């Protein structure tokens, strides 16, 4: 009885008792949810256009952030460093397409998945070799990102909002909106969607697969850079980020592998669910349940909807 009370009633009493804490937790969850969404977005972009489940997205985030900070440490002005990093990500996209995707075209999914594993190892080694393995501080203020916190009076208490989080939210929203416009309205965007629907049909109407792949990998690289800046500004730039990137997987499951809105909504659900779970139910189990709660949420969810929230219905034929 006591346990049932602790699981089903006590957390809600706590929520009702201190609404400002609840709002604070929700906000924290929202922000980390947005960052998960950004990583998931990178996955979705590549998965949609090439059917590759890009495991290297996490390390691309780290690599982009490291390049940016590393360049700045070598005396390159912040904005120039940003521009150079974008060029580096373009170069990465080109080489990935040339050296990895093109020779592996038409292979089973799992082989391509493994190849991105190889890419992950390669980038870890390269990043550590060039920039060193130590955690670095993101050059947030040099890039014009705000610092400090705003205290908002709300729900009978104070809720503290980090300015950088607000900036992250805004930038993420702008990015998602521009990607959506890009996909819906531009010529390249239409080509991308055509490729996503069917490689063969797209080829037959004269869309160059190679070009499309470079574009999506580049777009994913830019998303990775933005994620890296945001996440780096919140904590620091280190290779541990790569593990956090795995959190994008339950997000993808919730949202479906092919849906951009799904990635956003899934990210928010996971982010908020995780923080609320950790804060209110975590103490019951001993803390640290954040590490697996997201996966469990996704697992339970999958049992009822195997294709995710926005995923296309899976139809199987013999």
């Amino acid at each position: 009885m006591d346990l049932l009370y602790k699981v089903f009633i006590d957390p809600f009493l706590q929520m009702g008792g201190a609404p400002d804490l609840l709002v604070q937790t929700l906000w924290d969850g929202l922000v980390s949810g947005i960052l998960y969404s950004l990583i998931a977005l990178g996955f979705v972009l590549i998965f949609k256009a090439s059917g590759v489940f890009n495991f290297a997205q996490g390390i691309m985030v780290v690599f982009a952030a490291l390049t940016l900070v590393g360049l700045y440490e070598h005396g390159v002005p912040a904005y120039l460093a940003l521009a150079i990093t974008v060029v580096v990500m373009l170069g990465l996209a080109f080489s990935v397409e040339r050296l990895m995707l093109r020779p592996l075209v038409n292979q089973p999914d799992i082989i391509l998945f493994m190849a991105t594993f190889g890419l992950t190892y390669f980038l870890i080694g390269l990043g550590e070799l060039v920039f060193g393995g130590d955690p670095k501080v993101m050059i947030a203020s040099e890039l014009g990102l705000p610092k400090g916190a705003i205290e908002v009076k709300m729900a009978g208490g104070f809720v503290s909002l980090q300015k950088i989080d607000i900036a992250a939210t805004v930038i993420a929203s702008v990015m998602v909106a521009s990607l959506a416009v890009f996909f819906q309205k531009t010529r390249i965007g239409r080509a991308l969607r055509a490729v996503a629907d069917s490689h063969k049909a797209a080829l037959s109407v004269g869309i160059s697969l190679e070009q499309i792949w470079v574009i999506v990998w580049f777009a994913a690289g830019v998303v990775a850079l933005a994620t890296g800046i945001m996440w780096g500004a919140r904590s620091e730039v280190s290779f541990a980020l790569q593990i956090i990137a795995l959190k994008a997987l339950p997000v993808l499951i919730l949202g479906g592998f092919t849906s951009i809105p799904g990635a956003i909504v899934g990210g928010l659900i996971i982010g908020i669910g995780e923080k609320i779970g950790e804060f209110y139910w975590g103490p019951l189990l001993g803390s640290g349940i954040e590490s697996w709660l997201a996966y469990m949420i996704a697992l339970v969810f999958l049992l009822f909807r195997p294709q995710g929230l926005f995923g296309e219905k899976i139809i199987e034929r013999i």
Partner: protein
Amino acid sequence: MFYREAGQFKTSYTADMAVFPILQDRIGIAVVLVIAAVIIPLFGNDFLLQAVMTPFLVFALASIGLNLLTGYTGLLSLGTAGFMGVGAYACYKLTTAFPGVNVIIWIVASGFVSAAVGVLFGLPSLRIKGFYLAVATLAAQFFLSWCFIRVPWLFNYNVSGAIEVPTRTLFGVPVTGPNSLPVTRYLIVLAIVVVMTWLASNLIRGRFGRMWMAVRDMDIAAELIGIRLLHTKLLAFAVSSFYCGVAGAMMVFLWYGGAEADVFNINQSFTILFMVIIGGLGSLIGSFFGAALIYILPIILRIVPAELGVPLHAATVEHLTFIIVGALIIGFLIIEPHGLARLWQIGKQKLRVWPFPY
């Protein structure tokens, strides 16, 4: 010229169905076993036994376990290290609770605990497939490694939070713990791996193996011809986790001699998945090749610069190793997506018709 089956006639079905129907293969495997069981223990130094061969065999067994699940049944799993951890912790609990029973029995028995956990986490596989299932197994991985840290009962409430392997003896010879010799441990690992590989090879040639492969090739079609999906998939999870559990128990008891929860982290799972895919999905010998490539190659890469007298910083070597391994993985996948096992087969085929091209 030397390797061909011409002139070797089979007079019974049993002979025809043997694991190694060709005489040269039987000689080959005998030579390999003699080298592994006699020559390496006699002439190998402790480094070779302790840091190369024992881990290689442990990883090979774990790869076989994952290969049964991913390569033969087509269920992608990223929770291998979690299941290995279950085996290790179960073995620790069992041997501290019943110190009188021989530890080797417990190493094998802990596989059953791991199998039970595997079945539990395999339940979603009935409804979800492919990468979705991979994420479901990630849930197992993260949940289990959380348990290894947060459930003190698992490591007998000791302060360090790590499990330390007690000394256990077999016929008066210490086999685990700090007093045991690397040679003893190596031989035990070798014996377990050989027996379990032999069991696995018979398993996949029999009814269960065929059921698994039917499910892998198309599960709906398999269901239509009367294979019960739930049973088959759960059995695959159970057997696979059993192998991983034994590998995990051996890893801690016969290799590390003590372990923290961090040994069984997500990267370990990925490493084993690497081995399976580089070695060849759906191939037992491939599991050995994959384990050799992924585990032994970095060791060689680390030794080479020092041997050649190239002055490189240890950290630099580490990073270069990462780069080279990553590039090699991509390279191997481009050259032969079906893994080293396929290269091996091609080589054997070439050898059969040698010196003629076909």
